[in-house]
């Protein structure tokens, strides 16, 4: 399993990484990117199973990254979990319409992150079983 954590604050990347380990993703390779542009380059270069991204970042924001992923044939099925302080209605709707798989509002708890991740992986398992 490979997860890409995208956030311009290194503290936040560390926090998410710590939580993923705490939630049992121990045999998981967790990589980091500090904005959408770098994330996209990494996603094109190697396969990932999940992207956990912030919204508000320089160069390329999380929502633009999400749209870029959905627009690229080789990446469009990739699950994307948004973890962000952006909490106004329009932004959440924009993320939903762009095809986000989960949305966690900062500040969040380990339990919330776990719940959203579990849902995403359950859905992947379910769609995998159907296929």
């Amino acid at each position: 399993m490979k997860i890409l954590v995208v956030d311009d604050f290194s503290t936040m990347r560390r926090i998410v990484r710590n939580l993923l380990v705490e939630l049992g993703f121990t045999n998981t390779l967790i990589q980091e990117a500090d904005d959408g542009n770098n994330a996209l380059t990494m996603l094109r270069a190697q396969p990932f199973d999940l992207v956990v991204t912030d919204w508000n970042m320089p160069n390329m924001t999380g929502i633009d990254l999400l749209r870029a992923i959905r627009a690229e044939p080789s990446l469009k099925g990739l699950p994307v979990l948004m973890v962000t302080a952006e909490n106004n209605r329009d932004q959440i709707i924009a993320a939903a319409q762009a095809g986000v798989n989960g949305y966690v509002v900062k500040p969040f708890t380990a339990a919330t992150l776990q719940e959203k991740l579990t849902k995403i992986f359950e859905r992947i398992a379910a769609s995998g079983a159907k296929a």
Partner: protein
Amino acid sequence: MSTLIPLASDESLPSELRDLLNSPEGPAFEHALDAMVRQREQHLFRALGQLARELHDAVRRLGGELAQEGVPGIVADARQHLQDVLEMSANAANRSIDFAERIRPQADALAQRADDVLKRASGDELVAGFARDAGGFAETCRTGLADMVVAQSWQDLSGQRIKKVSAFIGTVETSLLELVRLTGALAGAEAPVDVAKVTSQEDADRLLSEFGF
């Protein structure tokens, strides 16, 4: 049907203006009107000038106060101070996460050891009880450490605000100058848009569920 009041006798107009409208001299009328408009503009410029000066004084005082406290303080340093706060808070958050990463394996090892001891206690209630306590403590540590790590997200949230304030300070002075130049545009300034805030995870979830998520 209401009667149409001729402009020259409209009671709501200032008397000077009514007199002018009644005046038969065209050029004198225009001249007087220009003078009135100019007078109003001067009021506006004076008010704006006053505002700019007060703001400038306030910023300079802030710089002076910072300098008295031993911080190398001139106004241009204001953003540097914020940058320092950002770095200090990141260092503090990182130290807390370092601590959690250091202690977590020890808590795991203690839990494992407690489990082993419990299996071999074979009826020794004293040993079994101690092993259970140790196991419980290890678990409490794990949960507490995870909570502590999550709590460090304050650094990210406050840091984002600091970045915004820093950018704001950088544009205030430029904007002020621009404001004085573009007084004419003031009348057309737009009111801020009221954005509906979603305040909690539940609100976000509810909103998403409306979209089938």
